[in-house]
């Protein structure tokens, strides 16, 4: 389970203080997908990095998999699988070595790692390229290796930060299928994206984030009723404050 209470992150940029995330509160239950929808620069990555212990919140608190990321960051990371467009693979290691390395870092025994790799390689169709170096793999193969890396220790919580960014249709589809499979296995899943169709297809609960604040939250049906729109894009635009907000966001360099 993921719980966040008034989660806030500010940082100093030259002489001014910038608020990246402000008073974000939400809950994500096991066996459910929480979709965090927002433009680039809305605060999605900062939020997920705080949950994954990569950044420390400056205000509020959260619990991930039963642990506080500030108090027990190692315990949180041991229960989390974090996959982002920015989490790359070691190009000079083979897919097997890459996954094994993360198994070892998670304190698994050699036998346990080998057994787990066998299962994951079977599920993801990785057998043919397991012993090839990651740097030489296709984008789809790299994505599968990354998935195997996040799943090697079978974490209870999965955090996805725009995992389909820059992927072709087939690879993106494989990711979406994989995220669903995670939910079906009872994992707690949080998924950030700026792609409306993805969030529609996947999420049990949708949270719309804009300028660091959670501006709307609910199931797709809830949001459709609240904003009197059926199209996700229209719901999003209304939630963030209408066309004026979109124009402002464009001026500030954010793109919906």
């Amino acid at each position, binding site marked *: 389970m993921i719980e966040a209470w008034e989660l806030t992150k500010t*940082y100093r940029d030259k002489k001014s203080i910038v608020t990246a995330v402000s008073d974000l509160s939400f809950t994500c239950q096991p066996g459910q997908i929480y979709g965090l929808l927002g433009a680039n620069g809305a605060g999605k990555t900062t939020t997920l*990095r705080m949950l*994954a212990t*990569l*950044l*420390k919140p400056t205000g509020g608190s959260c619990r991930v998999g039963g642990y506080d990321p500030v108090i027990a960051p*190692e*315990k949180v*990371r*041991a229960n*989390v699988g*974090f996959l*982002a467009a*920015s*989490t*790359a*693979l*070691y*190009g*000079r*290691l083979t897919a097997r*070595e890459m996954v094994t*390395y*993360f198994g*070892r*870092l*998670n*304190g698994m025994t050699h036998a346990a790692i080998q057994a787990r790799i066998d299962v994951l390689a079977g599920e993801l169709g990785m057998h043919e390229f397991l012993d090839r170096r990651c740097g030489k793999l296709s984008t789809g193969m790299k994505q599968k290796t990354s998935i195997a*890396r996040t799943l090697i220790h079978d974490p209870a919580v999965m955090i996805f930060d725009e995992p389909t960014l820059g992927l072709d249709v087939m690879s993106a589809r494989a990711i979406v299928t994989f995220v669903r499979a995670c939910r079906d296995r009872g994992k707690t899943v949080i998924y950030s994206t700026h792609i409306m169709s993805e969030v529609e297809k996947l999420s049990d609960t949708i949270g719309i984030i804009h300028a660091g604040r959670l501006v709307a939250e609910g199931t797709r049906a809830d949001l459709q009723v609240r904003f009197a729109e059926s199209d996700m894009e229209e719901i999003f635009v209304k939630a963030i404050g209408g066309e004026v907000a979109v124009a402002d966001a464009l001026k500030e360099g954010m793109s919906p």
Partner: protein
Amino acid sequence: MNWGHIVTVYCKEMKDSLRDRRTLLSMVVVPTLLMPLLIFAVSFLVKTTVQKAQAEATSLVLIGGEDSPGVVAGLKAAKNLRVIAADRDYRQMVSEKRVRLALEIPEGFEASLKEGSPKTVMLYHYEGEMKSGMGVDEVDRYLRLLREKTVESRLRDHGLSPDLIKPFEIQRQNVAPPEKVGGNLIGGLIPYLIIVLCFTGAMYPAIDLTAGEKERGTMETLLCSPVHRVNIVLGKFLTVMTASVATIAFTLVSTAGSLILAGSLLMGAGGGSGAALLPVIAPAGILGVFAMIIPVAMLFAAVLLTISLFAKSYKEAQTYVSPMMIVVLLPSLLGMLPGFELSAKTAVIPILNLTLVCKEMLSGVWNWSYIALIFGSTALYAAVAIVLCVKMFNREDVLFRE
């Protein structure tokens, strides 16, 4: 601190680094091949040019000497001299290096040898030109011998012993053991070379393991693992240190090997003064240098990791690290100067202290209290640098610099 995690990170980083062409080049290929190549090329060039100049007979032109046939005949008969007929002005011939020198025999020279009135023999040479200088020495030796023989015959004519003009002899004898001579000769150069290699050996892996990882996006992946940051830093630190120490080890082995080989190949056949070019160094001194370099390698590894971690990309890290080379070189160059001696003050100045103590150890002087002070102070600096590096690793504004 979890040694299991440290070893896991270390093993992975070593494997990764050994598969990186740049690291491999700076750690193994350059130190193993560069030094032997340099030693062979330089010693071969020096040896061949010097030997060629030595083997060649000294060419000279004679000016005058028509009334001194005996002296001229003697000069022409001398094995290492080659008298060339002047076909133009002798000055021009010397300037154009057609001959090494010109020898002017004054009028009535041979007659004056018998009569006793002193005359002056002139040698015209080309100052600063090696061959001309060697030629002058050769002719000078020949003429001195002629003078000595003349004096001896005059003394005999007067019924006196030749010893009359040599009341005593002067002799020199070296008491320094060969390894001390060697230590003094290259004692300053070896630490300097080792410090440079220690630094360059650590440079590429340090950048690759920090800024390189950030650039490639693997740093975030690594930070997602449940390993404490201290263990990640120590694993990376040990990798950089291994690369640094390995660079030195490869260099020392290849340098020693090629020096021995070059000595036997090039100098052995030629004989003579060649062996003096090959300084003898006590093996204990080399081991001492190697032991003293460990804390310096630690210091370099930690400092380089800290600096390059701050950079966003490989290129940016190189920009930060390159000027460090000068900071490192300066104290090691100072250590080579004769005025700097090991004292309580200089023993706590990093790098300079290593240069000074290495110079001493290589010439067989073991000042244990200073050695302990140097080892201790450098290890302390290294520990501070590691703490700083861990602190940097915990700073999110450094790790996620946009």
